[in-house]
């Protein structure tokens, strides 16, 4: 019997190769570079107007790194969306495609536990998404170093929190993918849930219960840019806290995202184990 850890490593590498050679990966890579170039252009052109932006937005920010924080907030806002689209590319078809394209007949019949297949594929998907995030972040770090002569620690916090978010959103997309047998439904459902349902839920909860639903994934993920400026856009209020989100906020939001990762992957494992190809 082959050692499970070895099986896991081989399965991970098998899927990783298929992911990083795919058109989806190159497309997502290209998109992240284009977005980073656009933000680089903005950063160089807007650097001198940042103070106007800050005062016009009534942000009332003070401190020694105001410009960096304001600019990093814009970069961070975009960064928080990258994993969503990357996971739609890599995670949405992860399980549904096994059924739709009949690769399940090749893979399910091998003497390998399905949990190993699932985890191998999941970590491969997370790896390529993190590679996309790293590409974007390297450009961001280069720009900030060039413009400000150093890097504020919040940027590193933001990147690390984005990694946690990658795990959470990937697990959620895998869960949705395991429900469907058609890729199209999986793709659309992930986008609808993240961009429509979660926002709708936020509106409903804010209006009816006058509270920000911090436990929703989109709210927890906003920590990736709230580490720069603690700006919360509610429907009824705009809450601005000039101080960046603190450590306790980072930890609690990271924990919420980690729970999404754990619960989603757990349910996915159960569904995947029961998956049939008729």
């Amino acid at each position, binding site marked *: 019997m082959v050692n499970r850890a070895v099986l896991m490593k081989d399965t991970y590498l098998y899927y990783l190769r298929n992911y990083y050679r795919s058109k989806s990966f190159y497309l997502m890579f290209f998109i992240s570079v284009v977005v980073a170039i656009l933000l680089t252009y903005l950063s160089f052109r807007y650097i001198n107007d940042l103070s106007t932006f800050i005062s016009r937005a009534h942000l009332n920010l003070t401190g020694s790194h105001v410009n960096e924080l304001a600019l990093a907030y814009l970069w961070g806002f975009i960064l928080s969306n990258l994993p969503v689209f990357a996971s739609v590319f890599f995670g949405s078809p992860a399980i549904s495609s096994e059924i739709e394209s009949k690769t399940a007949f*090749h893979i399910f019949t091998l003497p390998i*536990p399905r949990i190993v297949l699932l985890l191998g594929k999941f970590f491969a998907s997370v790896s390529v998404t993190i590679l996309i995030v790293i590409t974007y972040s390297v450009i961001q770090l280069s720009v900030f170093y060039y413009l400000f002569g150093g890097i504020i620690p919040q940027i590193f916090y933001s990147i690390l929190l984005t990694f946690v978010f990658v795990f959470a959103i990937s697990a959620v997309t895998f869960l949705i993918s395991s429900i469907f047998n058609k890729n199209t439904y999986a793709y659309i459902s992930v986008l609808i849930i993240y961009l429509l349902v979660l926002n709708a839920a936020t509106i409903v909860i804010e209006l009816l219960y006058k509270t920000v639903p911090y436990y929703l994934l989109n709210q927890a993920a906003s920590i990736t840019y709230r580490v720069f400026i603690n700006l919360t856009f509610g429907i009824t209020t705009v809450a601005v806290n000039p101080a960046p989100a603190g450590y306790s906020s980072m930890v609690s939001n990271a924990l919420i995202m980690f729970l999404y990762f754990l619960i989603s992957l757990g349910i996915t494992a159960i569904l995947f184990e*029961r998956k049939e190809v008729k």
Partner: protein
Amino acid sequence: MIEMKAKGLSKRYGRLEALKNFEIEINSGDCVVLLGPNGAGKSTFLKISTNVVHPSSGFVEINGKRVDEDPMGALSSVGPLIELPEFYPYLNGKEVLSYVCKVKGADREMIKSEVNRLTDLLRMNNFMDRKTGQYSRGMKQRLALACSMAMDPKILILDEPTFGLDPRGMREFVEIIRNLNRKHGKTILFSTHLISEAREIANRVVIINGGEKKLEMKNETDAKMMRVTPYVMSDFSFLERSGVRVEYEGKEYVNLTLPDDMDNDGVISLIQRNGIRLKWAEPTNLIERKYLEMVN
């Protein structure tokens, strides 16, 4: 020795009962063909046997291990080929086959020699370095067979493996499978809806229809039944005086059932003495007759 068995196996998809209380025992070295029309339940049985589908009741046991309880243990000695599997499109044939060997416990050296052996055996040299997304149906079929043969499994489970192949490909495939059973002693469970394939490959045939096992029989001819094809369709009623039962099948064939005191040579010489020239004469294979009886 029993290598594989199914007991009380049933599978429901909603209201549809795809398999009903199916039972079978397959011995080491057997070549069992599941024969039945499309939708008969053949694939369902093979999918349950390879852990692609879970049974509603009953179980399949391979080498003493139940597939539903210990799929890894049960499938470790099985080489499966279910329908026409697809492969991950950005991996090449060598990578796919190497992974299958790794999963089946091969070390680096074994993987290399196994990939080379199967590449040569199935004549895949000219496409193993290409990504599988660029493969034709025939190439995928060969790679799938290579995967199922990797690491020399004791049992091959093949679900309509020749479906969609051109006649040459089909012939080669059947030849390979026949050799695996007869020369290498592999146990083979093979499903098809083609009687000709069952006749060529099987030593035992199981006829399935409507999710039920209708009949299990040896692959043999009936010495007392013949089918003849005359150059020109003629009146064969003169044979009835010698006790031969005559049935006309279409405009080409005549089926003859011989009496106990007459053999094949006897009836052929009787036909020729009556001035009828025969294009072809062969003993009737029982599979075809039984299949038509069961399925109709």
